């Protein structure tokens, strides 16, 4: 078998490796990052610039006065600011305890498999489009609120409370999954040590795991708050849209039971169309967007600052009740005398009572209520999905998917809506992928810590930017300034920009998890940085690219707000034949319009059918991403 020793000869020749002076990879990365950062800065600058006229017209009254009557050229946005805060406060008050309670159950009490099941359900639900939430809100939640609070003599079921509750359900998955992640990140040894001291399971969670996870949990709540502040479509459908209705009875339930208006719901409404062309009115409307951006930006950046590694590594604060033990020991004794002292002390003062006091009922009650939170969260969400498929099932037929709309939505199918949505998200993917790869490389390969953190902040900000603001930006830039009118490309670009943070973060996570030895091995062979990037880093982190893209696409597919002003119309568009003035139909916009305007009972069926179809697309995308995500989760746990 053994071949004779092969003489070492030059069987092939090598040439000196090709070394470029500067790297295309770096250029690519810089361009992608510049586009992303430029977009964020550009959006803020654009909004600020376009807001100027109203500031010179109304001055401070723009934010402090409560009179928005555009016909009279009065623009006071106070009631919308208050409305936004109230709606978000309701959402947070419901979603934070329920979400954290549920996260405690999933992370601490459920066995691995059950936890995974709950997590899958919750992550699927996180992808439900906001327009579908709105639809459910119109049909079920409005009536529920109206009937429940009948004794308060409500004007209608469209209240701040309704919008808040709807938002609570919408942000619940965010609170829950991120809190769960934060709790899981606390090492198991810490819990074991606490249990070893005799703490009950719940006390170990409450006194060890939860305090250590608190920064992550707070960040989760803040991110959810950011989403609540900026949600336009779902709130639009149930908040009542009553301008200038400032609460008169604070400290009662009353303000919550009135109709109202939020910054985002105003931006989702008809005034956008009316305002354009009148510089003052337009400035007032864009100013609402600017205010929203500032509010959401503050909250998201706060969350980002909290979770940045710098603050996480900071030492714990001095303890609250420090011992009064400043007194020096009486004798600088030798070991022996110290022991004698100790023995004496222990003999004199039996300070420790033998067995701890336990409050079993409290513990059972707490665990019970946390479990109830979990059931509530998963139950509500599953019920929603089932309701949509149940009501939509009668519309789902082959015809429904292959025909175009007829009779203003009452007949025919949604073929071109599906085509439109697919075209939009494909475009979004093409726009997003190169940029996201470029930004991810910039963040994990090229930038050092401080700058990488700065770029991370930009991504955070982009991720938190309410989708309605992408729509507003697109309206100004693509529809009007570039003169594209409504165009599928504008919609695709906007959705692509929206996806960037999701894809980038997923990529960066994988890149960070990549063992150093691979990179060292490649560099050890003499590969340059950029060659290492393309031969090791990107191939090894493609799982992140795939999952991030799928999740981003799931979100993009369901978005209404960015495309309603820029890319889609209700009827008549087919395959686009150009770019300018080439709108498409889409599923979410179809639902949004039919939810407000349907003249025929048959529309109802089609409406739910469309919602079911949209949900199928979104859930399919999330489900494809699921196996890879679970594997990543498992790797993270075992590592």
């Amino acid at each position, binding site marked *: 078998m053994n071949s004779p020793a092969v003489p070492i000869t030059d069987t092939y020749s090598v040439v000196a490796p090709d070394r470029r002076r500067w790297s295309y990879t770096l250029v690519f990365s810089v361009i992608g990052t510049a586009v992303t950062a430029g977009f964020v800065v550009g959006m803020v600058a654009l909004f600020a610039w376009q807001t100027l006229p109203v500031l010179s017209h109304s001055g401070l009254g723009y934010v402090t006065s409560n009179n928005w009557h555009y016909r009279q050229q009065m623009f006071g946005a106070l009631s919308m600011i208050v409305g936004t805060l109230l709606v978000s406060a309701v959402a947070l008050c419901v979603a934070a305890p329920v979400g954290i309670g549920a996260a405690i159950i999933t992370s601490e009490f459920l066995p691995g498999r059950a936890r995974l099941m709950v997590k899958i359900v919750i992550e699927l639900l996180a992808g439900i489009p906001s327009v579908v939430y709105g639809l459910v809100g119109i049909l079920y939640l409005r009536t529920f609120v109206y009937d429940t609070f009948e004794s308060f003599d409500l004007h209608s079921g469209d209240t701040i409370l309704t919008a808040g509750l709807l938002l609570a359900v919408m942000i619940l998955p965010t609170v829950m999954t991120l809190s769960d992640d934060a709790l899981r990140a606390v090492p198991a040894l810490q819990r074991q040590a*606490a*249990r070893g001291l005799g703490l009950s399971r719940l006390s170990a969670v409450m006194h060890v795991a939860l305090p250590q996870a608190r920064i992550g949990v707070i960040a989760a709540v803040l991110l959810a708050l950011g989403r609540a502040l900026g949600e336009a479509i779902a709130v639009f459908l149930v908040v009542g849209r009553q301008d200038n209705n400032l609460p008169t009875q604070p400290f009662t339930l009353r303000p919550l039971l009135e109709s109202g208006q939020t910054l985002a719901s105003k931006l989702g409404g008809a005034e956008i169309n009316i305002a354009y062309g009148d510089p003052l009115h337009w400035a007032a409307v864009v100013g609402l967007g600017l205010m929203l951006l500032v509010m959401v930006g503050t909250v998201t950046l706060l969350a980002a600052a909290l979770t940045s590694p710098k603050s996480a590594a900071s030492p*714990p604060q001095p*303890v609250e009740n420090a*011992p009064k*033990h400043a007194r020096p020991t009486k004798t600088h004794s030798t070991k022996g005398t110290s022991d004698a002292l100790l023995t004496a002390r222990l003999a004199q003062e039996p*300070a*420790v009572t033998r067995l701890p006091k336990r409050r079993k009922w409290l513990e059972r009650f707490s665990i019970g209520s946390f479990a109830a939170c979990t059931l509530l969260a998963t139950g509500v969400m599953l019920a929603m999905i089932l309701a949509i498929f149940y009501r939509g099932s009668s519309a789902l037929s082959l015809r429904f998917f292959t025909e175009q709309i007829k009779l203003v939505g009452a007949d025919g199918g949604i073929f071109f809506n599906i085509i439109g949505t697919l075209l939009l998200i494909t475009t979004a993917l093409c726009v997003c992928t190169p940029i996201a790869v470029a930004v991810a490389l910039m963040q994990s390969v090229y930038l050092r810590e401080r700058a990488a953190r700065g770029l991370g902040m930009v991504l955070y900000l982009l991720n938190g930017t309410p989708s309605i603001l992408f729509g507003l930006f697109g309206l100004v830039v693509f529809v009007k300034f570039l003169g594209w009118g409504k165009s599928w490309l504008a919609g695709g670009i906007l959705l692509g920009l929206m996806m960037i943070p999701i894809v980038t973060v997923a990529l960066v996570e994988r890149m960070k998890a990549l063992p150093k030895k691979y990179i060292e091995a490649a560099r050890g062979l003499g590969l340059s940085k950029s060659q290492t990037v393309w031969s090791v880093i990107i191939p090894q982190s493609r799982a992140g690219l795939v999952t991030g893209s799928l999740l981003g696409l799931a979100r993009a597919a369901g978005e209404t707000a960015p495309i309603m002003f820029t890319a889609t119309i209700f009827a008549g568009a087919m395959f686009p034949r150009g770019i300018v003035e080439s709108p498409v139909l889409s599923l979410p916009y179809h639902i949004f319009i039919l939810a407000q305007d349907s003249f025929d009972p048959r529309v109802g069926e089609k409406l739910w059918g469309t919602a079911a179809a949209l949900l199928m697309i979104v859930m399919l995308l999330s489900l494809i991403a699921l196996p890879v995500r679970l594997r990543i989760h498992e790797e993270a746990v075992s590592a």
Partner: protein
Amino acid sequence: MLKLAQDSACCSTETVSPAVLEARGLSVSIAGRPILKDVNLTIQPRQVFGIIGPSGAGKSTLIKCFNRLIELTPRAVVSGDITFNQGSILSGALHPDDLRVRIGMLFQQPVVFPKSIYQNVIFGVRRLRMVSRRALPDVAEAALREAALWEEVKDRLTDSALKLSVGQQQRLCLARTLAMQPEVILMDEPTSALDPRSTEAIEQLMLRLKERHTIVLVTHNIGQARRVCDWLACVCVNNGVGEVAETACCDQMLDNPCCQAVVDYLKRN
């Protein structure tokens, strides 16, 4: 089959007082795989009882049975019985959390909470409301003295415990356990992560602590066993399952083991 060695003559004088911990026919399996089979042990009060044996034989599993921490491991099944002061701990008469108050534990890696030194020491007594709030500083001082850490940390009690060296952290963990005044302290290779000096400090502590406490020590360091243990049990693998091959007083076991598996084990070390 292994021949189980019984107490030999040289040790018999010490077996007069009633056992603190006793395992009878204890078997453990995890996820359907048997880990320990038919373990019988008797642990006398106020001594250091060592458990030695090759890696993976189930020493840590065994020691976790004594305070029922094994039940935190998913799909762990325990059969047989363990008595603590003649009462069964598996029967349910004593809640496992209360059991763990009386049987403290020290882990391989020191596990300090990311809090101040002071908060770490009083963590258990405070959370379980075992002493009045006013007494907490005294409890902390006593516990830190007992763990021979007081002199090193008395001026920086409010510093983060994470700033301590690993050896100090392990003594802090010991102080945290001592503050609860447990009768038994389980130590699962407490010095395996420590440097020789810290190891020596912990060993010194064990010798002092056994005046007031019973210590069950898992160690893979024969030298350590010889230095601190009074009694030893050797857990060996037989047909893939851990069994107690031999129990004897320290010198007897190390110098003159009866069982072939123990002989082999000692020879390899």
